[in-house]
């Protein structure tokens, strides 16, 4: 069995702590860089990062891209607008197909 971790601002991550998720609150998104090794030391299966944190440490997240776990996933934070996760998916599609794929109404 493995754990779930979440990194983000205190407001976004606090609600997950009572559910058994390892919540790592950072004051500034850049602080996640120093925290990242500690998070990975706990060998979580899933790491959720808020959008500002994802924007601050893309290189560290990319380093985990080749292995099945941890699955690092972007979620919107309490103050963010969302859409970064979808952009990440679009980039994966572009990488695979060599082109963007329009979203059809029936797909959503």
């Amino acid at each position, binding site marked *: 069995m*493995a*754990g779930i971790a979440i990194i983000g601002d205190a407001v976004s991550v606090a609600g997950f702590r*009572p559910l*058994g998720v390892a919540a790592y609150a950072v004051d500034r998104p850049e602080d996640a860089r120093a925290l990242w090794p500690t998070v990975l030391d706990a060998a979580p299966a899933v790491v959720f990062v808020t959008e500002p944190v994802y924007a601050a440490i893309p290189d560290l997240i990319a380093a985990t*891209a080749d292995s*099945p776990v941890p699955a690092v996933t972007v979620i919107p934070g309490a103050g963010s607008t969302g859409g970064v996760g979808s952009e990440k*998916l679009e980039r994966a599609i572009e990488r695979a197909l060599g082109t963007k794929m329009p979203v059809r109404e029936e797909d959503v």
Partner: protein
Amino acid sequence: MATIRVNPNRMELLKLRRRLEVAKRGHKLLKDKLDELLKEFMARIAENRRLRDEVEEALFGAYGQLAIARAEAGSPVIASALLAGQPADLVEAGEKNVMSVRVPLLDLGEIPPPEGYSLATTPALLDGALENLSEVLPRMVELAEREKAIELLAAEIETTRRRVNALEYVLMPQLADAVRSIRMKLDESERSERTRLMKVKEMIEGQQQ
């Protein structure tokens, strides 16, 4: 395109033909693998988009409830209430092989019920928000599993496409060119050998007469 420099002899010809055959077989196998990977990839995308929209909407709803709870009871009360709970091992993590790509299999166990804070001093909205978060958590884990699989498949598709293209547009034409050029040179030397023999034969016949 750079050509392969080889000695034009029969041994090289056989060797190159064998290499070309292997390259053709490999190309066919890789092309089949690429098709299958693309099929698998496309099947996952639509479902993933729907799931992400659902998760983002549910998260915004829960954040909104938490914000109202904070406004009602005050940030320190909510912050101390949310300190309850310890990190637990919630996920059974495995791997699945999809066309030689190892994708994660995440199985979420039972989520502990949120407790450890005073129901008297915290607003009911906090309970609602935590309940909503515990409902969205399984979908978040599913989303993580799907997105990771999509990213791993995308990387494998890119690599496989490069290999297919390298075989199709570089190696196979180079080998075919090399085989053709050796063939031409061998034919040429065979013709010149035959002409020489005919000439010699003519000369010998002329001398005998």
